[in-house]
């Protein structure tokens, strides 16, 4: 049994699966990174992904165009981000609570909205057709390379985009004036406002970008990964992304590596549950990514704690 497991892990398709599974988590993790850089804890990512996944799919279905679907998902994500921003920055609802509210909308509100727009209940299975799903692409040259080609080629466009965004995000944060302002707002809002940088505006921009990225994650889920929208589809990825952000020290590249770790855990799950004799452990295997998240968070917290040493006995506000 164990040998089987080892065998199936050391195969190109396993690495392919990891990349595929990582992509939506990575989008959400980048969404967490950008908002956290501006000092905004976006715990509404889970709900954002649910809602954008639904709207992405619906837009794609209505227009029969996957591109409009993806853009629509991003647009809805931005709207949700701005809504959270309005309540938290303007009306001073605790940002955690705004996040929870968005998650509520994501849980039940989506079912209501799906019903309202289509009359369907629970999932969109009846509406799926190939032309509204995100296409996969073979990368020329690389797809000819044995093994590497199998791993890297043939992914959905959005999968590549997720990894490209890691580096774009890095450049954005560290090389552009807007990125500089966002980091300044997150690190010392008083400093930013003292030179006329609008803290609120930067936070709005960050959470809107966060929403757009969550939208990409959502679109990826409903228009590629699950091939249609269903209720239990996001399954905590928004929350896992928060953990990936924290473990990745809030940096895009760090978040990518922790996302890959979670991708690995989930890929293991699909692999292991397919093995003979393991079937009756399927639920425990499904638990793995969440346990990994807790363990990862604990290690991260321990490393922070070690750094704090003697100086921070004074409670940090």
């Amino acid at each position, binding site marked *: 049994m164990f040998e089987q497991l080892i065998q199936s892990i050391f195969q190109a398709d396993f690495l392919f699966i990891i990349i595929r599974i990582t992509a939506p988590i990575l989008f959400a993790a980048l969404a967490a990174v950008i908002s956290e850089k501006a000092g905004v804890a976006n*715990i509404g990512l889970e709900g954002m992904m649910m809602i954008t996944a639904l709207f992405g799919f619906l837009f794609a279905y209505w227009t029969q165009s996957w591109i409009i679907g993806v853009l629509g998902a991003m647009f809805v994500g931005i709207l949700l981000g701005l809504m959270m921003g309005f*309540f938290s920055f*303007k*009306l*001073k*609802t*605790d940002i*955690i*609570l*705004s996040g*929870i*509210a*968005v*998650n*509520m*909308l994501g*849980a*039940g*509100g989506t*079912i*209501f909205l799906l*019903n*309202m727009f289509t009359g369907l*209940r629970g999932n969109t299975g009846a509406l799926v057709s190939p032309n509204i799903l995100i296409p996969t692409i073979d990368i020329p040259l690389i797809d000819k390379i044995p093994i590497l080609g199998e791993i890297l080629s043939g992914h959905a466009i959005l999968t590549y985009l997720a990894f490209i965004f890691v580096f774009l995000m890095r450049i954005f944060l560290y090389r552009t004036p807007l990125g500089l302002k966002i980091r300044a707002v997150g690190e010392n809002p008083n400093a930013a406002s003292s030179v006329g940088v609008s803290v609120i505006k930067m936070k709005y921009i960050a959470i809107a970008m966060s929403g757009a990225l969550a939208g990409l994650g959502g679109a990826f889920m409903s228009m590629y990964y699950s091939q249609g929208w269903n209720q*239990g589809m996001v*399954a*905590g990825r928004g*929350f*896992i992304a*928060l*953990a990936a952000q*924290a473990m990745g020290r809030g940096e895009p590249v760090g978040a990518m590596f922790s996302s890959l770790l979670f991708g690995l855990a989930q890929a293991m799950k699909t692999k292991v549950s397919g093995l003979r004799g393991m079937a*009756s*452990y399927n*639920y*425990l295997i*499904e*638990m793995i990514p*969440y*346990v990994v*998240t*807790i363990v990862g*968070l*604990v290690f*991260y*917290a*321990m490393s*922070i*704690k070690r750094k704090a040493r003697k100086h921070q006995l004074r*409670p940090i*506000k």
Partner: protein
Amino acid sequence: MRDKRMVLFGFVRGAAAIALALAVGAIFIFLSSDEPFTALRYLLIGPFVSYHGGVTAFNTQNFYQVLAAMIPTIFTGLAVCVMFSANQFNLAAESCVLVGGFVGSLIGIYVNMTTGWHAVVCVLVASVVCGLIMLIPSVLKVKLGASEMVTSLMLNFVLLYIVLHFLNYHFADRSKGATMTFPFLESAKIPSIVPGNSKLTWGFVIAIIVSLLVWIFMYRTRWGYAIRMIGINESFSLYSGMNVGGTIILSSVIGGLLSGMGGSLEVLGRYNTFVWRELPGYGWTGVTIAILAKNNPGAVPLAAFFLAYLNKGCQLMSTHSDVPSEMIDIIQAAIFLFFAAEQFLSGFRQKLVVKTTREELMRTESLTATEGE
């Protein structure tokens, strides 16, 4: 003067928040329904009023059902109150309800005891198990500084899968089509307090009593006091010599105890076997209740009643019209957002403060003037 005005302002604000949230709900109903007025009628007054051939009457069964629906949410509401009071955004009440229900069920099925004691033992063991579970996020928070919010969210999934695993592979009744446990022993069931099918059990009475006890705990004992002070200002509490870490852990464990109690009372009161296959959502409702009750355990039954009423209204609405019952989540999210919004109507509040301060200044000045003479 200032205080009285502010209390009044608090009421106005709360009412306005709820009204706005209902208005949001109404907008969605008008957008989605062909028969919006029927839908609205069922949503707003359906739970209590029944029509029979043009005769309106108070609907007792529905009323009992609304009360029955409060049982688990009062407990999760209280649990969240206690944890939020300590400023712990611990969201694991959601899964503790499930675990509490499951553990209570197992004891209700596999342990033979005398009537009366059996149910008590089921509920107590379920509570203790959930209390212990809450040690995980709280100890990690206190000892390592790991965000209790993220760990508790992850814990929700972990516990769900553990329960599903045991339910499916160890305790399932294979003779049934669906996955469920064997039936509870009669001695483990929570008896009803009213005739009929409303499931209004002694659990409700216990919930009300526990609300009172939790209020006493929070406002009349040293532990509750410490929890509240830590929630308001952790630095202050630390400087005053309180055991901040221990108190945070205590608040989480109590949150677990209460959620487990709610879960087991609900399952043993409402069902004959354990049938939950997903997270029941009561934890999230508990968060809304705690927000509505402003973390005051005394107000929890009221908030729970309000939400149970709305929920029942949504169910009736979906039965009698074309609007789905998940509407409740939209209304709940809206209530949540407006109610928790500190600055909601703040312009109005600022005007009140300015007015009051001016009056006070004038009064003190005229006083000093007379003294000077």
